[in-house]
């Protein structure tokens, strides 16, 4: 399905076909993402649930330990990413479940939309929603825990974008995989949390590093590499296995 991107060794028209194919995949993915976001902003089903959930968890954590202590600086990253992972599961559960009423999934799959566009579009929509939830949580976190998280804003934004894309991709893949299963809402977290472990470790380490006043150390920067590798590998796998996962 997905052509390789070996433009150097193929005739020009083949390269052009590939470029057109990639453009079309992207355009269709954006249509799907826009449609999903339009529905979500109208119903606010997962946005409300995930946002409220994130804030409640942040509040509960403040009772678990003294929010003013120096310790917050050391565990802040871990706390935030666990909240995001849990809130993410709520978003992903809705992602494909939204296609079930009226058998919209069949309508989409039998249309010229490719399975990989559909998967990537779903990931894009979840990505935007999750980033929104993260922004709100971060603000609340700063207030509840008296935390100056904006010391290194650009690096922090980069970490959030990279890690959130990884979570959103896996969420879309396994949202699609579990959409027709019994106990769908239970299966999704059981499957994605173990798979997210490397990504979450990396995001936590980097976020903790960025909450301190010092720039990242070289061994912390290695975690950035983990994030990038994770994103690339799982996006590629998602594209390759989209048909297998969606058409069965």
């Amino acid at each position, binding site marked *: 399905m997905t052509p390789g991107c070996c433009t150097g060794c193929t005739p020009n028209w083949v390269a052009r076909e590939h470029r057109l194919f990639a453009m079309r995949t992207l355009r269709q993915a954006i249509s799907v993402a826009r449609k999903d976001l339009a529905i979500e902003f109208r119903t606010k089903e997962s946005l409300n649930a995930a946002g409220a959930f994130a804030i409640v968890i942040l509040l509960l954590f403040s009772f678990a330990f003294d929010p003013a202590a120096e310790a917050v600086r050391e565990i802040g990253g871990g706390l935030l990413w666990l909240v995001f992972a849990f809130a993410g599961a709520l978003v992903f559960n809705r992602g494909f479940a939204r296609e079930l009423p009226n058998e919209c999934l069949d309508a989409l799959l039998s249309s010229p939309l490719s399975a990989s566009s559909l998967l990537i579009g779903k990931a894009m929509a979840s990505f935007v929603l999750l980033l929104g939830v993260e922004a709100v949580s971060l603000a609340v976190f700063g207030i509840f825990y008296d935390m100056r998280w904006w010391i290194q804003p650009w690096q922090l934004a980069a970490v959030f974008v990279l890690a959130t894309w990884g979570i959103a991709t896996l969420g879309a893949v396994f949202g699609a995989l579990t959409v027709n299963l019994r106990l769908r809402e239970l*299966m999704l977290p*059981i499957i994605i949390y173990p*798979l997210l*472990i490397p990504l979450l470790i990396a995001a936590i380490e980097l976020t903790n590093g960025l909450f301190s006043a010092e720039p990242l150390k070289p061994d912390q920067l290695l975690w950035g590499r983990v994030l990038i590798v994770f994103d690339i*590998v799982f996006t590629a*796998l998602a594209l390759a296995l989209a048909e*297998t996962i969606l058409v069965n």
Partner: protein
Amino acid sequence: MREKVVFGLAAVSAVLLAYDLYQIFLVLPDEAAQGAIYRIMFFHIPAAITGMIGYFVALTLSILYLSTGRLRYDSLAASIVEVSVVFSIVNIVTGSIWARVIWGIWWTWDYRLTSALVCVLIFCAYLIMRRAIEEPTQRARLSAALCIFGCVDVVIVWKSIEWFRTQHPGPVLSIRTGGGNIDPAMERMIYLNLLAILMMAAAMVLVRTRQEQTAREIDSLRRLANAA
């Protein structure tokens, strides 16, 4: 035929295991630094290797299933994952006992320990998901996809944690070190026990595969009965 193979494998494995146990507990001396507890290694290392081989074979079978669509590969992959998870748990438990004696702690977030644990969690998820899907063909496709994602994830965990904390002893087998790290008699014992455990695992897998196939036959008969 299959029964004979299973019986043969199990019998040879049992005899070999008895011989190994005799050697390990009554012939080999205590290790200089660790004392008697080092003997747990004769089960810890072969269990780890058996689990790893299992996951690798399951990955191969999953890819084979997706390219050929033969349910035989799926049954085999599922059986292998199940048996591998058991051996991975044996590996973690024996390692933990050893760590309590030598390090004084049950657990540490070392990269080998962490990736072994992540591996068990991922493949437990695989087994749990299989139970949630009724239709065998759909189950096979989705499980194969999950198996591929899981194996890739385990590799990423392994490589990423390798960069930082390591407390686990380094490689001991001479195929990885070039020799000199372990007494040849002990190394020979590890291989012998690995052989015994692999044969045991193979026998278990064959029994499990048979059950999987029978389950599929029953499922198809039930569908036939419902359709008529």
